[in-house]
Structures are given as C-alpha cells and as structure tokens.
C-alpha cells in the first residue's frame, strides 16, 4: 500500500512531528514498506475469527472506588518548565 507524500505530511502534522521535505520523501517510502509488510495479513482467511481488542485474552480488572493518591503537586511542578500559583504554564492557547 503506497502512501502519498501528502498523507505522510498530514500524519506528521497530526503527531506534531516536524519533518523536512527530504525526510518526508524517505518516510513515504519506509512507511509504505511497513504497510506492505502488514498487508500480508490480508491474505489470511479470518472468517469466524473474532477480532481481539488486546493481545491478552483477559477481561479488565476493576478497582474499588477509593481515593488512594496523595497530593504530590510540588514534585510534579518541580519538573515542569514553567509554573505559577500551582498552575502549569503553557504558551497562550487562545488569542
């Protein structure tokens, strides 16, 4: 399955990864090869096979509704690039 250059640029944009034109061309080739590799699965007859949502064939375990976490704000704030009054600061979101 061949991806187009535009698709690769769009994927990079959605993932917020900056790639140059030269890289984009190479990724277009490499990503297409990966898709081709996976596409071999299309040849397998999967009639009567229920799709799995997870490689482990187990149900989700549930946790009792209890507050078990303590406030560790200062530790988390300490590793953030910019903080003020207990808030994380980020570049302005809206004009």
């Amino acid at each position, binding site marked *: 399955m061949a991806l187009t250059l535009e698709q690769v640029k*769009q994927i990079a944009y*959605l993932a*917020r990864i900056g790639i140059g034109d030269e890289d984009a061309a190479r990724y277009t080739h490499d990503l297409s090869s990966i898709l081709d590799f996976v596409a071999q699965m299309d040849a397998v007859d999967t009639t009567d096979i229920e799709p799995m*949502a*997870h490689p*482990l064939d*187990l*149900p*989700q*375990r*549930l*946790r*009792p*509704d*209890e*507050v*078990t*976490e303590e*406030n*560790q*704000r200062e530790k*988390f*704030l300490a590793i953030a690039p*910019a903080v*003020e*009054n*207990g*808030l*994380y*600061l*980020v*570049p*302005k*979101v*809206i004009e």
Partner: protein
Amino acid sequence: MEWEPVIGLEIHVQLLTRSKIFSGASTAYGAPPNTQACAIDLGMPGTLPVLNEAAVRLAVKFGLAVEAEIARRSVFARKNYFYPDLPKGYQISQYELPVVGKGHLTIHLDGREKRIGITRAHLEEDAGKSLHEDFHGLTGIDLNRAGTPLLEIVSEPDLRSPEEAVAYMKKLHQLVVWLGICDGNMQEGSFRCDANVSVRPLGERAFGTRTEIKNVNSFRFVERAIQFEIERQIRVLESGGTVVQETRLYDADRDETRPMRTKEEAFDYRYFPDPDLLPLVISEDFIEEVRRELPELPEARYRRFIEQYGLKPYDAEVLTATRALSDYFEAVVRQAACDPKLCANWVMVELSGALNRAGLEIDQSPVDADRLAGLLRRIADGTISGKIAKQVFELMWDSGKDADTLIEEKGLKQITDAGAIEKIIDEIIAANPKQVAQYRAGKEKLFGFFVGQVMKATQGKANPQQVNALLKEKLQGGG
C-alpha cells in the same frame, strides 16, 4: 419553503464517584489547582490506568434506566489530539464498542409525549482546565479535573424543535440526578451539552448538513443557541448558499453562534483500542445486582401519581421533578391520610413557595413531611380553615412546633358554633345599616365586605362555609 429542524444532543454527565475513572486521585470539586492530579492523570511514563468499578456501575445503572442494551463486552479506545489540558495527548474514551447501547427516554411537552431514542452512552475521562487569565502572555493549566469519569450520552436525531431539545435535556438531567449518578450541577460543569443541528425541507427524508454547537451549559442557552442556529441555516439555504459542516460556539452575550474550527483544521482523532486497558466484560450477575439497586424511575412514579392519587398530569410532573420532592409528597400523603390533591396543593404552593423564598431545597425544609401532614389533618377534619392553616404553616416554619401545639397555643381553632357565628353576624348587620341597604337593593358585590367583617371579628377563625350560608340567610331574610 417550510423547514424542519433536526436536532441530536450529546450530553456529558460527570459521574458521582469519589476517585477518578482510571486513578485513585480524588474528584472533589474546588480543590487548589493540581493537588488532585496524580501521575496517572498526568500521563507520566510507566503508569497504568485501572478502571474504577463505580464508574462502570453508574454507567450500567443509567443504561438500565433507559432500557438500553448493556454491552457484555466493551472496549476503551484512545482519541488522539493535542491540547494543553490533555496531558497524555489522547483521551481514553470508548468508540466502536460503548458500554451502553440503544435506549430511549420519554419527554413531555405541551401535553404531548414523545419517545426520544438514545443511540449510545460511553465512558470516558474528562480533560483538565485552561485558565486564560494572563500569566505574562501564558495560559495556566489546572489538571484536577483530568481523569474525572464522564458518561457521554448521545441521542438519536429525533428532536424537532429547540423546545423538544430542552425538554429532553431536562428529562435526562432529572433522571441522572434521580439515579444518583450525577450531582447535576451545571455551573460546575457536571452536566454539559453539545447540540447537532440541521434543517431540511418539511417532508424530506434525507438529513441536511449539520453543525455542532459546543458546550452550552444552561437549559436557556441551549434553547437560544439552537434557535439561532436553525434560523441561520435557513437564511443560508434560502439565499442559495450551503451549510458548512463545522463546530460552532454559542456566544450568550451576543446571542449568536460562531464557527470554532475551520475545515482545514478538522480533527482526525485516529481512534484505536487502548493497549493499556483490557476489554471491559460485564457479567449477568453484575447487571442484575445493579438492576436491584434501581429506584422507582421518575416516569413510572409520574404515572403512578396520576393513577393512584388522581393528580393532574401537570401536578404529577411538578411533584416528580426530583426524587426528594416526590418522596416528601408521598410521605405527607401517607401520614396525613387525607385528600392527596390537598397534599399536592400544599406541597406545590405553600411549601415550595416558602422554600423558594428562603432559597432552600426540599431536603433542607424546616417543616418536615410529618409536621406538614399534621397540619393538613387539621384542615381535613375542619379544626382550622385553609386560610388559618397558612398562618399556622408560617408559625411552624419559624418555630419547629407542630400544628396541634400551635393551634392550641394561639387559639386558632375554627369557630363552628353556629350560634356564636350568628351572634357576630347580627352585630355586624346592626353596625352597618348603609351597606345592608345597598346589598338588599341589589349591590351583591358587598357580600364580600360582610364576609370580611365577620372574619375580622373572629380573627379569621369562623368556618367559612358556615359564615357564607348564615350571612346569605340573614342578609336576605330581614327587611
């Protein structure tokens, strides 16, 4: 041309759990910023989300209440997008396999009933909050809300007017609060609404292009936003244009909707199953256990009130607005053992009026059901008139005493002794010869004047029916 609006609502209901949907951090509202955002909520590497049992239970409870299919197996998916209040870069939600499938809810509007389809309801986590006050040109982020459990309830496009949309929204709000799965607090964002709106020529079956109005957080604004959007789309179509599929924001100050994102930036969420979470499997036992916890539902109680107590539909609707109010009303009926309509009137008019004036909820009422019933028994057995009962009610409200004590203390017992009432009437007739003459000459409006005089002389304690009968007799009788 005549146009028909087609509306569907997506409502986000914050579930009433103590801890978050995937972590043990508290969900309490109003804590100092970021004190309830733990490593899991922050999306720190190496953490693993584990699903909260209560969130599942509350979702199933909702599903059963709207007679929906409960998925025995549902799957959590990642909805990928970047925004600063979403630390992981994706929201854990459900996509192809939601926990609650097709159900329905009945709305009442102008004496009509209409069944509105519910497409699905799925569990997901909430995002944090962006604070746009100026922090030196930066935005502040509070992640306390990140990871709070939400149930997103999606309706079928069955709504045909802004009024129907609001009736549905109110009905859903009533239900989730009634079930105790949500506190319903719209100011704090516990119940939020997005509306999908389109119009089509009346009689056309295909849907028109829809727009989505985001995050409208009051019943009134939902109605106005949808109304505006319908009119806008009709204007566009009638002037030969086409409606663009887009997300719009409602601006309450200007009463209009505006585009929020342009088409080029349209989101592509790239949903895929979250590898951190296994499929959610719900057993029959679990479902039956939740079913047994279900209270009588508002719609069932509404119908029962009409049937069992002979209430008018409007009164039954008012009295089942909340579970607490309907419980209160039934307690009064049970204990007063008198005409349920008398009980309904007192709960709806006197009690609700007093609560409104005091800014109190029914469960904060200074007069409990027991004491109100005690008062109504005295109206029913003729000890006091309805008018005196209002006085007693006010005294009960302020004093905490019961009706019998107050009637005794204040000497408010009704005068039913015909001889005593006659004597007072005779005195009044003697003292007001001019009015008597006018009345007898045909000015019948003056009857009220005489009733007033008798009531004044007895401080309102004379039995009104007796006063009316005796006055009529005496005023006509003499010459």
